[in-house]
């Protein structure tokens, strides 16, 4: 069964909390990784690699630059056809 947006969001929130120390509850769809969540360009690489492992997807570097907000990432991972 495919993961819901809420499940993907919860998983990303755990990752952002680990990497940047932001409370998971603050990691919302409209938040910008750089401007709101203290995820700089280096930490974004960590978030991507951790998300790839958690959700079993591949996120090429060319696509990473389009992932500005948490919502962008959730949508991307959902479309990549994640299954639990």
């Amino acid at each position: 069964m495919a993961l819901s947006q809420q499940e993907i969001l919860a998983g990303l929130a755990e990752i952002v909390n680990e990497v940047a120390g932001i409370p998971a509850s603050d990691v919302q769809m409209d938040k910008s990784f750089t401007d709101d969540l203290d995820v700089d360009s280096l930490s974004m690489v960590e978030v991507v690699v951790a998300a790839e492992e958690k959700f079993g997807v591949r996120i090429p570097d060319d696509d990473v630059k389009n992932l500005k907000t948490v919502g962008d990432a959730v949508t991307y991972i959902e479309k990549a056809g994640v299954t639990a």
Partner: protein
Amino acid sequence: MDAATEPVQSRQGRQVVVTGLGATTPIGGDVASTWQGLLAGRSGVGVLTEEWAADLPVRIAARIEVEPLEVLERVEARTLDRSQQFAIIAAREAWAQAGRPEVDKERLGVVFASGIGGVTTLLNSYDTLREKGARRVSPHTVPMLMPNGPAAAVGLDLQARAGVHTPVSACASGAEAIAVGLEMIRGGRADVVVCGGTEAAIHPLPLAAFAAMRAMSTRNDEPLRASRPYDKARDGFIMGEGAGAVVLEAAEYAQARGATILGEIAGVGISSDGYHIAAPDPEGRGVVRALQAALSNAGLAPSDITHINAHATSTPAGDVAEAKAIREVFGAAADGVVVTAPKSTFGHLLGAAGVVEAIATLLSINEHIVPPTLNLDDKDDDVDLDVVTVDPRPLRPGPALSNAFGFGGHNVVLVIKPA
């Protein structure tokens, strides 16, 4: 001394004072506890209980007393190498003591040294690469392992914009950081400079590598007695870890802002041996030149000096070479100089040693007391110096020297005056 042999370094530029001290060491998580540990003669050396230590020829070291994660937030610490964590802790303590001066950031510099840099990050990342592949190597690896990483991290923490530097001269690195900071202020490039040294190299590879040089003590069964500078039974140094930091300021700047002045960096002497990549010149000729240059740079004579904080690491060759050099430069005046070797207490802090020991030197001349050298039961016949043993010794007022030498033939002597 005739004109031809007179050291070319001469005192010039602005007077430079010390307004803040910071440290995290094997005997204390700050300057006050480290100083109390030194006075009490409390050793920071212990047995390494990690599994990896079991097969090493050296299984003792001086671990930091307060782990950085007890002080720093997890998220801040996770992108800093252990050497950077120590540096940040020491620099923040020094900056706080200086009263967090509201200096123009373009007049604020940082000079933070390390002997080896982020070696544990380098080696652990290599393990990750081999075991899990390139994609799992952290994007923070390079900023954590680069030798200028601690300087850059402290510079970022303080938003310093007058220049951030990293002298690398093995175990003279920390003292050289103070020397570079001194020159930055004397020359007018900065008004305030945070100088420091840090080292976090207690890992099997550095231990095995220093042991391969036969530079380390293998007195594994007696860790508290292993670091014994000047003693006949000494057999090498004990690796320590930690950091020290000092805030230097142009005297007129510190006075104008009403800062509490703790002392003065009155001069520095630097030389290189040109003798061997690691072994000290047995006659200590490079050390002689550094001592002479330091005195000349500060405008002092040997008879002015009351105390020397010796580099003395507890190696058979190095301790005697330094002792001979001091006697040669000081002559009969050496009888009036109280010498101590704090590596007997907290081990050899490598790139941090020169700063932590400069701090101890400053506290000695301000409080008129010199901590003891531990384990000096039977002094080497070639060490003709007045070394403090067992209990702290009262000290007459006056300036002091702090010595730091490094593999590669680096010699740095700092001249420190009391407040």
